[in-house]
């Protein structure tokens, strides 16, 4: 066998210095505790084997306890194994739905930041804020008018607007691990902000954090925005634009109270039914349902406008479930499923 190097022979791993059985037992216990971080399936497959390797390595280096680097390596690998187990154990329909979500949710997060009242106030720092009935188009106008007085606001604007989109851009550039790391940092920071009682980047704290959490899960579990883009296709994106635009308008009407807009929830429901009827094809229906996942946070706003706060956070879950079942059914019916366009 090749590759013996300076370490002891692989034919005799696990031999600690004689008379040191208590120390060996203690070391083994510590390693077993670290191996407990791995998923059960993984443990049953590799734990005993890994223990042999760990004990042999410790013997070679004369270690009596796991080093910091070894500990971090084991815990990190265990967490990766757990995440991978979630990913591989997930129904492909969920993974595809989440792939679409991972692409589109950041756009909605950005929209949520944009419409947060505190943020609009911040931009108008020194100008008395703008709440209390505003023309949303005036926001753009005010950016220009008060630029000299809100340079800090502009810097904040660019950073906060760019941050949620960073995981998508990184994923599209094939930097998936970095994208996951960035998404985790954004979620952690938002959690810290919320727990300290600071104002976060959106008015609906729970909905916003749920969005970020699902985005992180979607990046980990699914094949990410690249797959999402392939599933939707450019034509699909173009078809979704009017629907999303409508929801944004409703959101503005509900939250900013621009009097010039007369949309209400009935209009939205009719528009959705009309759109589904007009696009009466399997492709259109699947697209529509897939888009209900990322669009669901905006349904929260509609619910709030409707004055039903108890149902606020139920809507995304229900819509996601519907999308999941329909997507799974389509997959079972139509094989192979490479893109939505191909299976319609």
């Amino acid at each position, binding site marked *: *066998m090749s590759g013996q*190097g300076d*370490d002891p022979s692989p034919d005799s791993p696990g031999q600690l210095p004689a008379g040191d059985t208590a120390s060996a037992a203690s070391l083994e216990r510590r390693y077993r505790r670290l191996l407990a971080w791995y998923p059960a399936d993984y443990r049953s497959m590799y734990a005993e*084997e*890994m223990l042999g390797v*760990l004990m042999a390595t410790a013997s070679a280096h004369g270690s009596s306890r796991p080093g910091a680097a070894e500990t971090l390596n084991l815990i990190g690998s265990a967490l990766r194994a757990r995440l991978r187990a979630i990913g591989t154990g997930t129904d492909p329909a969920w993974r595809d739905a989440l792939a679409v979500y991972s692409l589109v949710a950041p756009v909605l997060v950005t929209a949520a930041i944009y419409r947060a009242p505190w943020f609009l106030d911040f931009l108008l720092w020194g100008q008395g804020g703008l709440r209390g009935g505003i023309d949303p188009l005036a926001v753009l106008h005010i950016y220009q008018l008060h630029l000299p007085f809100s340079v800090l606001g502009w810097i904040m604007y660019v950073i906060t607007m760019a941050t949620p989109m960073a995981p998508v851009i990184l994923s599209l550039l094939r930097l998936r691990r970095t994208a996951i790391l960035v998404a985790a940092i954004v979620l952690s920071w938002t959690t810290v902000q919320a727990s300290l009682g600071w104002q976060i980047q959106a008015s609906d704290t729970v909905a916003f954090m749920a969005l970020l959490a699902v985005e992180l899960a979607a990046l980990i579990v699914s094949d990410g925005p690249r797959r999402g883009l392939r599933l939707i296709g450019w034509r699909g994106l173009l078809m979704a634009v009017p629907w999303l635009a409508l929801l944004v308008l409703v959101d503005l009407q509900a939250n900013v109270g621009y009097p010039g807009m007369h949309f209400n929830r009935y209009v939205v429901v009719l528009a959705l039914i009309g759109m589904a009827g007009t696009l009466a094809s399997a492709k259109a229906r699947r697209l529509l349902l897939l888009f209900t996942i990322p669009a669901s946070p905006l349904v929260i706003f509609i619910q709030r406008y409707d004055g039903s706060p108890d149902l606020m956070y139920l809507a995304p879950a229900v819509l996601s479930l519907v999308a999941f079942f329909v997507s799974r059914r389509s997959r079972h019916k139509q094989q192979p499923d490479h893109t939505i366009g191909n299976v319609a």
Partner: protein
Amino acid sequence: MQEPTFLILTALAAGPQHGYGIMTDVASISAGRVRLRAGTLYTALDRLKSDGSIDVDREEIVDGRLRRYYRLTPSGTAVLSAEAERMRHSARIATARLRKLAGRTVTARGPVPRPGAAPAGGTA
């Protein structure tokens, strides 16, 4: 392909090996530059097994501990072969370009003076 994966497959190209054997072999192949930790090794082995690049060859119990030997599958051999060819191709290009660069540098500086000859310009 990441370097640890390449080195693990290279280690197994010598024949079936168990985890600790792979670790020491990888350190040897990389002249001590890459030292795999157990977590990293088994993450890679698990992935390679899922990909079908490696398979379990046999199991033994030595000193009361399980020792599992892994071997390269035909698919793994093809993957390693393709990666080695890719690296060889890149190395060939890099070598050729470096040779050209060295040639250009010599030309820019002028011919290399022969030993004992007075340097151009006359002052030493």
